[in-house]
């Protein structure tokens, strides 16, 4: 299994200035300020489970932008109900990207409850019509392109290796500065 960073690099490369990126708390949010992201970024440092509904509010308000929401399996396990909420609102300009590593990485790497959740099946059963698993970074651009063309919201599932030795940078932006900078 491939670690996180190559996937994040591939995702950022596939974004355009017309996209909007919303990240849940944790490693992705901590990496993004150190990367050149062509789209506006709103990164959380708290509030597990907030990234997808936050992105939904943006997507419904700005239908001309494509909104990409990054969420971890720990966060989504806490609030899987949001899949039904997204399906009900049915924005075609929202792609959720689910990072699966089976751990609460940002709180010390504790394991998630040991249930073999089938996220693709859960998403489909909740009404998300476009679901795809992306096994390698090289496939991410095409997967995102297909998600953009979907008639409704999409979910891309990225199984990644949990690497307790990954040198994740600390949070480097203050939340109110993130809000002040975020302009569409």
């Amino acid at each position: 299994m491939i670690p996180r960073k190559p996937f994040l690099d591939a995702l950022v490369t596939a974004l355009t200035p017309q996209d909007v990126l919303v990240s849940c708390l944790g490693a992705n949010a901590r990496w993004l300020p150190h990367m050149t992201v062509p789209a506006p970024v709103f990164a959380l440092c708290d509030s597990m489970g907030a990234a997808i509904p936050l992105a939904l509010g943006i997507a419904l308000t700005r239908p001309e932008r494509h909104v990409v929401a990054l969420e971890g399996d720990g966060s989504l396990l806490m609030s899987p109900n949001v899949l039904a909420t997204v399906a009900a609102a049915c924005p075609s300009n929202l792609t959720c990207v689910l990072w699966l590593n089976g751990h609460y990485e940002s709180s010390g790497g504790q394991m998630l409850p040991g249930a073999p959740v089938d996220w693709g099946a859960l998403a489909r059963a909740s009404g998300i019509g476009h679901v795809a698993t992306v096994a390698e970074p090289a496939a991410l651009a095409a997967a995102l392109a297909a998600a953009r063309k979907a008639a409704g919201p999409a979910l891309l599932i990225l199984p990644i290796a949990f690497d307790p030795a990954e040198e994740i940078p600390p949070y480097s932006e203050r939340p109110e500065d993130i809000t002040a900078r975020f302009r569409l």
Partner: protein
Amino acid sequence: MSGAVAIVRGLEDAGVTLAASVPDTWIGKIMAAVRASAKVRAVDVAREEEAVAVACGANLAGGRGAVLIQNAGLLNCGGILAGLVELYRLPCFFIVSLRGDHRDPVYYHAPKGRVTEATLQAWRLPHALADGKGDLAAQVKRGVEFSVESRGPFVLLVSGEDLA
């Protein structure tokens, strides 16, 4: 004009574009009026914390979001109020049904009624009780404007009597 319609008029007057909601009996009456509005989009969510995030997303994107939930749901929202609304300095206007006060005859709401205003005080959430005999639309508009200007939350507590 019913109180529910007046509340939605206030949302419209304040430029609210999106109302995210988990309904109860009372909030459902307001959401029925929202669905009749040409200016405010109704967004049905599964959990109250989602409603907060959806409304904040609308605000970040240049719209104006509002959250319409019961007080039971507001009591669920301590984490996201602290970790999103307060931390990121985001406007977030709430209309919350105040179940369980002396005007609410349903016994099982009483425990929520006893703790709601104390919780709002403890969480330092600016709030007001709606005055159904006054101008509800103006009260709503003032609440929205307060949340926008203060870049934070404001909670307007409504009772079933206010909606008639």
